[in-house]
């Protein structure tokens, strides 16, 4: 956002009111708590109805990357990045594989964290521990990316264009998020998600209208690109790019469906009806979000050509600047869109923060470090954990600024998250899946995925092997070990016929 014009007093008052409303909801969430327990703090007493559940799933799933990263990638790749629409829908399709059944089990068995299911299903401390570590590492990566984008988002608007503005952005927004998140727990976060989801939805809609108003129809933008040096970005993607499409659909579809904060939203649903209705509505949201971000990238390709490298992640800001300079109404709408971007960032970051703290508190502190601790004590530990995690990551976000592009950041965490597919999606349907082979499959999958991702292999091109992400190769080995191992164990127990 460093290309936007600095906001004036009126815009800052609007943004301050918006941020204050989040703090107010944190305080209201604190007052609405029914008991000082982990279930009340992290699952809001399992009482989310359709509207709250739908908007909290929406606000949590669509992050800052949905806005900046997708528009930037569409600028670099062209219409080929329509894949963003596909993989956002794939997440909802993969929920179908386990979410409804997991919801029913969570009600019967009282699950609080995703790892509670693993403990219940496998009775294996090793699977539970590795599952916790995989999820916490993936979430920390995600939270760090959101914090870095918060810094960039605020950087240009102060008029300073300096590192100091970035640092204030990271620290200020992280502080607000910490206050409302630790005051009211997931209840406050879901309520803020209702505001944030509403602002985000409105922001995307307004963005589409503004682009058409300022630059004309999309067909004119496409025609401009066709007669430019970027004409190839309109053509159907090549065979290797199509393999990447399949890879992204599978990797992000399965990986993001296993986000711990999303699993905890499943647990928090008031009823199976509320859960299914929310997921059914979510199936249409890629058209109102990811598709609009791709369209913004195409407009930028036509009217702000020539950007390269990290600059391409700023294409949306370039477009908004043009709109901002166009008219007073354009300026006002850019303030609204900026608020929507903040909403996308904060609503994703706060959910990740709470999920990390719940898993550390329940699955590590309450299980390994201090078994038998009182609920009120665990809740207090969870709040302290949130502060420690966010302060540490905010420091890292400041130290690592300008280190990686947004898409690079999201790629690796899905490579490790998908290794939990057998533990969740297969185990919930196939009772013959055994803990030993599942554990070895998980270890094999993680080893292969991480080796391919970070090892010095000449056949790994742009982080992929023959267009497919390392995590998928790890997953194939993972499933093979888990399934074949379980079948062999079963045969050995039964003995020869």
């Amino acid at each position, binding site marked *: 956002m460093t290309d936007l014009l600095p906001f004036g007093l009126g815009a800052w008052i609007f943004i301050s009111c918006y941020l204050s409303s989040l703090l107010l909801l944190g305080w209201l969430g604190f007052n609405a708590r029914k008991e000082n327990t982990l279930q009340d703090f992290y699952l809001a007493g399992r009482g989310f109805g359709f509207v709250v559940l739908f908007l909290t799933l929406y606000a949590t799933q669509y992050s800052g990357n949905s806005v900046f990263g997708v528009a930037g990638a569409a600028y670099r790749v062209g219409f080929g990045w329509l894949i963003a629409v596909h993989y956002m829908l794939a997440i909802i399709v993969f929920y179908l594989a386990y979410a409804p059944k997991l919801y029913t089990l969570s009600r019967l068995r009282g699950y609080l964290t995703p790892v509670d299911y693993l403990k219940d299903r496998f009775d294996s401390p090793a699977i539970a521990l590795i599952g916790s570590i995989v999820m916490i590492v993936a979430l920390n990566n995600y939270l760090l990316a959101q914090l870095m984008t918060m810094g960039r988002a605020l950087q240009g608007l102060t008029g300073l264009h300096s590192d100091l503005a970035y640092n204030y952005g990271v620290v200020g927004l992280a502080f607000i998020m910490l206050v409302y998140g630790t005051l009211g727990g997931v209840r406050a976060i879901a309520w803020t998600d209702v505001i944030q989801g509403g602002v985000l939805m409105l922001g995307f809609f307004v963005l589409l209208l503004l682009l058409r108003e300022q630059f004309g129809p999309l067909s004119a933008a496409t025609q401009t690109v066709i007669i430019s040096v970027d004409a190839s970005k309109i053509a159907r993607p090549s065979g290797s790019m199509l393999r990447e499409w399949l890879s992204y659909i599978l990797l992000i579809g399965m990986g993001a469906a296993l986000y711990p904060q999303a699993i905890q939203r499943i647990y928090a649903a008031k009823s199976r009806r509320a859960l299914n209705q929310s997921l059914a509505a979510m*199936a249409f949201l890629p058209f109102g979000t990811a598709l609009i971000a791709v369209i913004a990238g195409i407009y930028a390709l036509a009217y702000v050509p020539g950007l390269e490298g990290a600059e391409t992640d700023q294409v949306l800001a370039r477009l908004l600047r043009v709109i901002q300079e166009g008219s007073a109404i354009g300026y006002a709408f850019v303030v609204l869109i900026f608020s929507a971007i903040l909403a996308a960032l904060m609503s994703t970051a706060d959910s990740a923060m709470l999920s990390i703290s719940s898993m550390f508190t329940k699955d590590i502190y309450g299980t390994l470090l201090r078994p038998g601790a009182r609920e009120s004590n665990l809740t207090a530990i969870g709040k302290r954990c949130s502060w420690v995690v966010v302060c540490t990551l905010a420091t890292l976000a400041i130290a690592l600024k300008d280190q990686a592009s947004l898409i690079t950041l999201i790629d690796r965490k899905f490579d490790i998250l998908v290794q939990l597919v057998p533990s969740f999606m297969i185990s919930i349907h196939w009772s013959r899946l055994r803990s030993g082979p599942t554990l070895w499959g998980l270890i094999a999958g993680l080893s292969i995925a991480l080796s391919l991702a970070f090892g010095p292999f000449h056949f790994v091109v742009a982080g992929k092997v023959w267009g497919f992400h390392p995590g998928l190769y790890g997953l194939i080995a993972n499933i093979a070990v888990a399934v074949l191992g379980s079948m062999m164990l079963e045969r050995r127990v039964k003995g020869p016929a």
Partner: protein
Amino acid sequence: MKHRSPRRWVGLAYLVLLALVIPWYWPAGDTRHAFGFPLWALASLAAVLATSIFTAYIYLSSIDDD
């Protein structure tokens, strides 16, 4: 708890939709467009919309399943 036989055709339907979503069947190098979208993109988006409708139907029709 009510038990229903698993709907195996659902997986098959998703495989067909996945094959349509990825526009491998469209001629490479085609830059014809309508409403601002290349034709191959419109074909792919139509398949995505069909997937959305199908997914919503599956969720809404299995509300009472356990």
